[in-house]
């Protein structure tokens, strides 16, 4: 009945696989079967699997692969849009685009955090991205040729991402599901700003309208590829659905996306570049043309227009940023050295007075941007008195 001391919520980078993950100490086949049964029951009952729960090795590996690829996509996805920050046509658009690209960085960090709870360190994940051993979404290997591409990305690429991600909020793995809730809350602004941008261009001059149409022509098909290969070719889909990592098939989500986009394109007064697009009374869905899966495979294999550039820029950003990380570590070491003398030994203090709960604990060096606990309390009192 004793509790054990281990970091519970997420593990330290590089600590390796959680011993709780596989059967501890080499469990017997019966014990293994019992663990598997408990896992299956939890998934079936729509309970969430949490980091220190036992889980099948293949479940863990699938999640690491999927979450890592998702995180990498967020980080690489910053590049095509960041390409236009300095050339945004107005301060308003520039501020919006910066906020969006910052959000994508945040999404990457939420997801890396979720992946780390499965026992894979941050360093390891980045290394696999930088050496091409883990993939990111093929969509980000297309170039952003005009300002209208920023709009098309927001509307179509973020739109497709939302269609994919909303069901992931109910993923069976708790930390991934929670990260997706956060991401989805932020994504809707991404899609709207893109749509608004395209609308402005579409309603603008003839040249602006043509620019918007050209962007949609180039981004439409790659966006449909974002849902992955057709169901009959999707290698891991069935198992992921069994595990409730995935809730809908690739084709199902793709259809949902097409159905959403058709009326939106109409309202934009832009055409989707598919002559086979027509309403199917029987299915009550939009029929659409055949996707060029050869192009998808080529881009995935590294032969898209920007694959090399994206990876090169990612590695360069990492290497060029090394001095910042070193400076931060040096600063932390200096602050720690300066702060050593005054604090009494924590053990000695504990014997005299019980430790304060964190809500009241005085901070030795409060950060500039956060109010001191005492100011916080008096402000609260002030509010109470005035009511």
């Amino acid at each position, binding site marked *: *009945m004793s*509790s*054990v*001391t*281990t*970091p*519970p*919520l*997420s*593990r*330290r*980078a*590089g600590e390796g696989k959680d011993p*709780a993950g596989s059967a*501890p100490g080499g469990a017997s086949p019966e014990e293994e079967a019992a663990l598997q049964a408990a896992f299956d029951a939890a998934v079936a009952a729509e309970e969430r699997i*949490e980091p*220190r*729960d*036992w889980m099948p090795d293949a479940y863990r590996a699938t999640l690491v692969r999927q979450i890592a690829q998702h995180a990498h996509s967020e980080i690489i996805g910053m590049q095509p849009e960041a390409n236009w920050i300095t050339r945004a046509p107005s301060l308003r658009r520039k501020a919006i685009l910066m*906020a969006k690209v*910052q*959000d994508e960085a*945040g999404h990457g*960090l*939420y997801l890396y*955090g979720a992946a*780390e*709870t499965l026992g894979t*360190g*941050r*360093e390891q994940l*980045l290394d696999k991205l930088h050496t091409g051993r883990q993939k990111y979404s093929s969509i980000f290997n297309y170039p952003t040729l005009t300002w209208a591409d920023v709009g098309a990305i927001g509307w179509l690429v973020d739109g497709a991402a939302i269609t994919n991600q909303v069901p992931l909020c109910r993923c069976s793995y708790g930390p991934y599901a*929670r*990260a997706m809730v*956060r991401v989805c809350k*932020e994504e809707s602004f991404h899609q709207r700003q893109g749509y608004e941008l395209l609308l402005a261009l579409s309603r603008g001059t003839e040249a602006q309208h043509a620019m918007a149409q050209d962007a949609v022509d180039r981004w439409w098909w790659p966006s449909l590829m974002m849902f992955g290969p057709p169901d009959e070719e999707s290698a891991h889909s069935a198992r992921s659905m069994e595990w409730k990592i995935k809730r809908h098939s690739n084709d199902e989500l793709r259809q949902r996306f097409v159905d959403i986009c058709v009326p939106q394109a109409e309202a934009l007064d832009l055409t989707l570049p598919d002559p086979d697009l027509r309403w199917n009374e029987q299915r009550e869905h939009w029929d659409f043309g055949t996707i060029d899966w050869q192009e998808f495979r080529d881009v995935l294999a590294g032969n898209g227009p920007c694959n090399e550039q994206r990876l090169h820029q990612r590695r360069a950003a*990492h290497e060029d940023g090394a001095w910042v*990380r070193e400076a*931060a*570590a040096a*600063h*932390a070491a200096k*602050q*720690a050295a300066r702060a050593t003398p005054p604090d009494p030994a924590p053990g000695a203090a504990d014997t005299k007075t019980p430790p304060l709960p*964190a809500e009241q604990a005085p901070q030795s*060096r409060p*950060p500039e*941007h*956060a*109010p001191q606990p005492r100011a*916080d309390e008096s402000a*609260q009192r002030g*509010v109470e008195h005035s009511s």
Partner: protein
Amino acid sequence: MSADWPLWEVFVRSRRGLSHTHAGSLHAPDAQMALRNARDLFTRRSEGVSLWVVPSVEITASSPDEKDPFFAPAADKPYRHPTFYEVPEGVRNL
């Protein structure tokens, strides 16, 4: 990158009157920088009025393996809940 930077758990008080809630984790070289990173990562849209960062290694947790025996003492004490007790019909405010 942050291989040598410790992991911090971030707790956010979304508004006054509510407790801090676990939001996620991040890497930072020290507590001050962890706070700043946490602000940028978890409160870009005013989601919080107060932040805590706690070194992940400092947290002591119950083990999932002993989940059942650990929490068992509470399971057989229904008399801790008001619904356990019978109250004659018509008796109010009880």
